[in-house]
Structure formats: C-alpha cells, structure tokens
C-alpha cells in the first residue's frame, strides 16, 4: 500500500502530484478484507442537522454519507468520474429538459420499507430544490419528477439544464431521504434530521452530545458482503493536538480532514503503525483566495490588483504555510479538476519590482514614509492556513508599499463583516470547488448577488462580459462547448482579477496500518465506507 502513503518530500512536487493522483489506479489490497470490528474516527465538530439532503456540507457528509446515500458517487476510474449508488444509470435528453435515472432494485430503507422512485421524486422536489443549500441553485429549474415505474425517475426541467452540471452535482447534492418518514409534518423539524434514516451501509445508532456519534452495521445492505465494519464511532475531539495523541495511543484509528495539524504530520508519519494519506480528497478541493472589495478606488484599478498578484510568492505560500501539502493556483478552477482546468491563462509570477512599477504607473506613489496607501485585511478564521496567509499577505504587501491592517474576527463576525457589511478591503477566503464551476465557483465573481450571501461576490465587482459568459455557459447543453466556455471563464478571471487565486489544497488523513480500503475514491472521507475494513 506504499503507493499512496506519500512522504512530505514527495509532496513538494505539488501540482504535478495532485494531477497525477487522479490518474493512479484504485488501490489493490494485499489481503482480502476482514469482517467485523469497530472503527473509531476523530470528529472535530458536531453538526446538529445530520440530513445531507438539506445540508450538503462536508461536515455533515463525513457522518451522514454512511447512512444516507446519493444517486451516484465520485470515482477515480468510472465513466465521467462517477460510479453508481442508488441509481444504476443516468441519461440526459438532447434538449436538456429531462434526465432519466434507472434505480437500483432490491434496496431497503433502514426501517425495512422498500426504496422506490417515489423517494427520489420526493427528495428532489420537496428537499433538494426548496431547502438544500446547494440544490436551490442547481435544481432551480426542476419542475416535476415523473415516476413511470418504481425504478425509474425522470427529472423534468422548465428550462434547458446542462446534463454535465446535473451529473457533476450527483455526488454531493443527491442524497435520497425516505418519503414515508418525511411526508408527515415540516421537513425542517423532522426528528430524522438528527437521527437520519437512509439506505446506506450503516444505520444511525446513537449520538451523545460532546462525546460521540455511533453508526451500526446495516445487515440488509444491498452491497454484496458489505459493509465489512460492525460499527463506526466518531469520537468528538475538539483539540487537534489531542487527536494526534489519540492516534498514537491507539484510541482512535483514523483522523480525516486534517484533524492532525500539518505541523505534526512529519513527526506522526514516523510513528510505527501510523500512515499519512493525502489521497481521497481530490473531489473536495479548497481554494486559497484573496477577495477584493472593488468599491475601494485603489482596488478598482486593474494595475493595483495585478501588482498585488505579483507581490504574492505562491511557491513560498505552498511550502511554508501548507508545508508542501498544497499546489499553487493559476485561476478559479483547481489544477486537479479533470474536466475544466486550463493552464492557458495570464499568470503573475512573483516579482516585487514589477509590482512596484505597476503601482507607480497607477499613480500611487510612495509617500515619505514609504507607504502608498492603507488597506483593511480580513483573514477568514476557519483554517489555521487562512490566518497564516493573512499574516504573510500583510508582509508581502508591505514590500510594495501597501500598509495592510489585519482585522481578526471569529467565524460569525467574519461572515457578517465581509458578506453583509462589506467592511473590508481585502479578505482571505477558502471557497470550495465542487466539481463544476456552476455549483459554487461562478458566484464568486458574478454581479447582482444580494447582500449577505456567503462565499459569493460581495466585493462590488461588475464585469458585463464575464456575467454574459457565465449565463451563456449555464445554458449551454453541449458538454464540450460548455467546457470550452468555462476555460474562457478562467482566462477572463485570471486577466481581470476580480479575486486572486493563490493556492489549492485538500485534506490529509492519518490512519493506523490496520485500516484497509482507505482513499479509494476522490471523495473518500465523505463517501459511504461500505468497503472499509479493519485488519485484526
């Protein structure tokens, strides 16, 4: 299994590795999977609403994806990067007005009732479209779901909707919940939101606030011989240093989502019996981005934005802040995306002299104290790395005569300051790339988004060309043409710099040697773990 246990030095190769990792074959294990056992996993937060059909977020998926399944899951080698789950096949009509799903036969809900197309129709129309954080955008034109028989669901759209988008949205947005559980009362208040009922390999067993979540084997799971584990326990460990210690003491067997701090990985990779794994997050790429408030006169000037881009040493950021566990970014689509990424965009190599020149040209000369102007910089507090990059950016800007004043907030205050009050000049944000630019990437630069929408363009940036391109791409049905438009989109964003993409990173898992079948799909940490096993 050494092929995916990657050393830190190997990772310094950065981007090349991220690209190559998607091409690696799925893991071949030395021995047949063992049955039984309890896998104990570190959890650093406690999501309250565990319904992934309403809250499509990684924190919820981490636990719920083992209980509630989607129509399809991401895959390293499947067609279009997908493999079947509750749906066996999916086909889009040429006019973009319908998508037909053939569903898996013989699937039962955890309460014993059969799974049918009615459940899919209910989930799509009553949950994803009106209530889901991401589904409200992707499924906005969904008008009905026809169910000609129990195993066929036909999604009908009021406006042509690109099949490529629906397909790319399946792994994260298509969690199917049981109609018979949710049709009584308000969906948002249903008790199953806290104790989900699904078709997955594990049943939700127990939650003790502040202590753990426990999932138990679903004996009537549709997967042959699956799942292998008897139980999965998520132990709540709010302190990240303790998570590392718990792994060493063999009290937990897996810490996903970089629960072990990057700085500890070097040491922990040398502990016998533990392995550091960087694979299994290719479909969950986070982007390190400098958000810009274009209402500031200076920042509305393209030359100033270019100067800032030239002032940032991306290689340094990757090596020093991410300790090599990241890749430099060129634009709004990450390098490891297999469908849309293009390297053919304007780039801004690290060049302080050029940055200074650009600022001089723009008319912002240094004053006697060496400063050109002062900016308010708000680093997002959600990750150590975003905070550290804020400190770095302040220094980088100082070198070109821009005085950045750092404002630190907690999460709620940061969200309000940046996305509602627009009380920032520069902000450091970690938007997520979700496999298709239309899901959560284009809104980062599109104009006309109401105040208060998080992780969207709240910097007052307006570019009619770019807006038109985004609309055109959202209506283009042909996959190749649509992909081309998004390549054009990347070029335009990189040229006009509504925001500055600095780096792209994913997470790291640390696991005991005894845990098998780790990281065998691009969204492994948030997939169903039906084939995960423990060697005794």
């Amino acid at each position, binding site marked *: 299994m050494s092929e995916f246990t990657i050393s830190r030095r190997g990772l310094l190769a950065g981007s090349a590795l991220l690209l190559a990792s998607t091409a690696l074959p799925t893991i071949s294990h030395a021995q047949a999977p063992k049955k039984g056992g309890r896998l*104990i996993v570190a959890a650093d*937060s406690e*999501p*309250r*609403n565990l319904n992934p059909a309403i*809250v*499509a*977020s990684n*924190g919820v998926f981490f636990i719920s994806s083992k209980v509630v399944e989607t129509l399809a899951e991401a895959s390293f080698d499947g067609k279009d990067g997908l493999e079947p789950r509750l749906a066996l096949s999916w086909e889009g009509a040429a006019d973009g007005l319908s998508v037909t799903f053939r569903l898996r036969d013989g699937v039962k809900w955890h309460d014993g009732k059969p799974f049918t197309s009615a459940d899919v129709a209910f989930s799509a129309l009553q949950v994803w479209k009106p*209530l889901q*954080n*991401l589904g*409200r*955008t992707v499924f906005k034109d969904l008008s009905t779901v026809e169910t000609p028989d129990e195993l066929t669901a036909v999604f009908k759209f009021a406006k042509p909707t690109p099949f490529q988008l629906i397909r790319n949205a399946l792994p994260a947005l298509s969690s199917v919940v049981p109609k018979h559980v949710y049709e009584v009362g308000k969906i*948002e*208040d249903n008790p199953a*939101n*806290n104790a989900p009922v699904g078709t997955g390999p594990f049943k939700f067993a*127990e939650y*003790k*606030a*502040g*202590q*753990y979540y*426990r999932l138990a084997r679903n004996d009537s799971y549709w997967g042959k011989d699956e799942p292998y584990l008897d*139980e999965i*326990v998520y*132990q*709540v*460990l*709010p*302190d990240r*240093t*303790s998570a590392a*210690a*718990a792994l*060493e*003491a063999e*009290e937990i067997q897996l810490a996903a989502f970089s629960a072990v701090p990057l700085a500890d990985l070097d040491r922990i990779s040398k502990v016998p019996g533990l392995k550091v794994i960087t694979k299994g997050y290719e479909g969950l790429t986070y982007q390190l981005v400098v958000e810009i408030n274009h209402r500031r006169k200076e920042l509305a000037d393209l030359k100033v934005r270019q100067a800032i881009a030239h002032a940032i040493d991306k290689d340094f950021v990757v090596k020093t802040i991410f300790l090599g566990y990241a890749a430099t970014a060129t634009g709004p689509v990450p390098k490891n995306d297999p469908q849309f990424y293009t390297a053919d965009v304007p780039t801004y190599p690290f060049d302080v002299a050029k940055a200074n020149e650009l600022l001089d040209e723009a008319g912002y000369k240094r004053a006697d104290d060496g400063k050109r102007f002062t900016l308010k910089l708000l680093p997002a507090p*959600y990750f150590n790395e975003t905070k550290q990059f804020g400190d770095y950016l302040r220094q980088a800007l100082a070198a070109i005569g821009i005085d950045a004043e750092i404002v630190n*907030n*907690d*999460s*709620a*205050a*940061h*969200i*309000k*300051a940046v996305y*509602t*009050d627009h009380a920032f000049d520069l902000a450091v944000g970690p938007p997520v790339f979700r496999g298709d630019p239309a899901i*959560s990437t284009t809104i980062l630069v599109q104009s006309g*988004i*109401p105040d*208060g*929408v*998080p*992780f969207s363009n709240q910097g007052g940036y307006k570019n009619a060309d770019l807006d038109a391109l985004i609309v055109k791409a959202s209506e283009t049905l042909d996959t190749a043409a649509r992909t081309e438009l998004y390549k054009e989109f990347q070029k335009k964003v990189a040229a006009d710099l509504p925001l500055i993409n600095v780096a792209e990173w994913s997470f790291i898992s640390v696991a005991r040697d005894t845990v098998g079948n780790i990281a065998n799909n691009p969204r492994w940490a948030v997939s169903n773990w039906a084939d995960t096993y423990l060697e005794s």
Partner: protein
Amino acid sequence: MTRALTLLRRRLVGSVFVLLIVVIGSFLLLEAAPGDAVDAYIVSTGGDAGMIELLRHRWGLDQSELTRLANYLWALCHLDLGRSVTFSRPIRDVIIERLPTTLILMGSATALSFGLGSALGIYAGARPGSFRDRFLSIGSLALYAVPGFWLGLVLIVVFAVDLRWLPIGGIETIASGKTGLARAADVVAHLVLPVAALGFIYLALYLRMMRAGMAEAWRQDFVLATRARGLPRRRIVLAHVARNALLPLVTMLGLQSAQMLGGSVVIESVFAVPGLGRLAQEAVAGRDAPVLLGIILVSAVLVVVINLLVDLAYAFLDPRVGASEASA
C-alpha cells in the same frame, strides 16, 4: 440557627436582582457581537439569499432585539429556558446533560486543590522558612505558572500515550455497555488526568494562602500564650495556628467555585470532556444567546448557593461572623 436564616433571607432577595442584571447584561453583550446565529451557521453550509432569509425567520432572528429579550424573560418567568436553534432541542435538556460532568470534574478538582493545597500549606506553614516550606512554595508556584493546556498535554503524552495507564480523553469508554461499579470505575479513570491538570494548577493558591496565614498567626500573642501554657506543638499547629489561617481559604473556595462552575474551556477541550465550558464556547461561536444565558443562569444559581454555604461555614468557623446581623 437564626443567624443562618437571616443570612439566607438576605442572600435570596439580593440574588434575584443579581440574576436579572446578569441575564440582561449577557444578552446585550452577545447581541453586540457582530453576526448572528444564521451567520455562524452558514459558515459551514453557504446558501443563497432565500435560504438565509428563511432561516432568520424560522429562528426568530428577524424580530427586534427588545422583542426577543422580552420573550426570553417572559418564558423565564415560567421557568422555561427556551429552545436552542443550533441544537434544535430544549435548552434545559442540553444543559442538564452536561451539568453532572462539570460538577464532577470541577468538584473533584476543587476538592483536590483545596484538600491537598491546605494540607501541604499546613505542612509548610508549621515551620515557616524551613527547607520544606521553601521547596513547596516554589514548587507550587511553578505549577501555577504552567498554562493549563500545556500541563494537560504533558499529562496526556506521559500517562496516556507513553505509559498507556489512563485513557486519553472523554468521560467514559464509548458505548462500553458497562454498568454500576464498573462504569463508575471507568469514569474515574477518565477523570484522573483532567482533575489532576485542573487541581494542580489551583493547588498553589491554597497552599500559599494557608502558609502565609500561618506565618502571620505564629507571630500573634495568643500563640505565644499557647506555647507558654505548654500545649503540645501538634495541637498548637492544628487547633490554633491553622484554624485561624483557614478563614481566608474558605473565602477563596467560594470565589473559586464561581470560576469552576463555568467549566474550563481549555481543559474540557484538551481532554474532550463534554462539560459546560465547551458548551458555552460553542454557544458563543454559534451566537446561540439563549444557550449561553441558560448556562450563565444555572451557574449563577449554583454560585449563589455555594457562597451561601461558604457564609454558613464562615459563621461556624468564626463565632463573630453574623452575630451583629442576627441581633439587629
């Protein structure tokens, strides 16, 4: 007995006003923090304008601050702590679930620091200036200077990772199915490290206070008198010197309990103990004002009760206390 009753009555009347001020003050403080519960929630989900509006409406955040405060106080009059939006459960349940853990953890830690601290303080104070006095004073001060999280992590590394004598964290073994005594032993094993981490830090307070009080008492005339009367040294130390030095310690215990009942965010996080401190921290981060107010109220009530007990203990230890009030 009348002394005790008078104390009790005076305290209870005062407490109601104290609690009211605490509740309103905390509510306004939390309101002043930028961002609301919806802002905190969408950090992990994102969402469009319609969804955000829907959430604000469902969670009652589209009402004015005053309306919400009035509603809260009105419910409070009916002994209803309200419902948490982030936990989507009644707040009473959320707090009751955590209260025993905090009481056990903090109670044991306080008992450890008070008991061991005053015992060592007596030992040191029996001969002020001796080697053992210097050693204990400096040693305890060094412990007091150590940051809590660091002491916690060192204990984890030594006793849980290297020696593997004790569990690393949590309050009990997960889903162990243990009952009765076996379960109690399991909980005790889990509590050893966090109690030690908390207790050792505060040990110095009691030790030094006891020792200083005794050093002071040794210089008093009545001690000279007891020696002149030829009392055995042991009796002088315990019944005369130590007893007189004990009063400030009891005051300290009352003050300390207030701090302890709020829970310890740091130690609870490091040892993954599900206590009130962590809950309060989550409530602030999630801008869940009613949960925070609930915690503040519950701990305020407990603090009032404990201080009442401290006053009674005071009255017991020192006959002068409360005598004038009872006769007035």
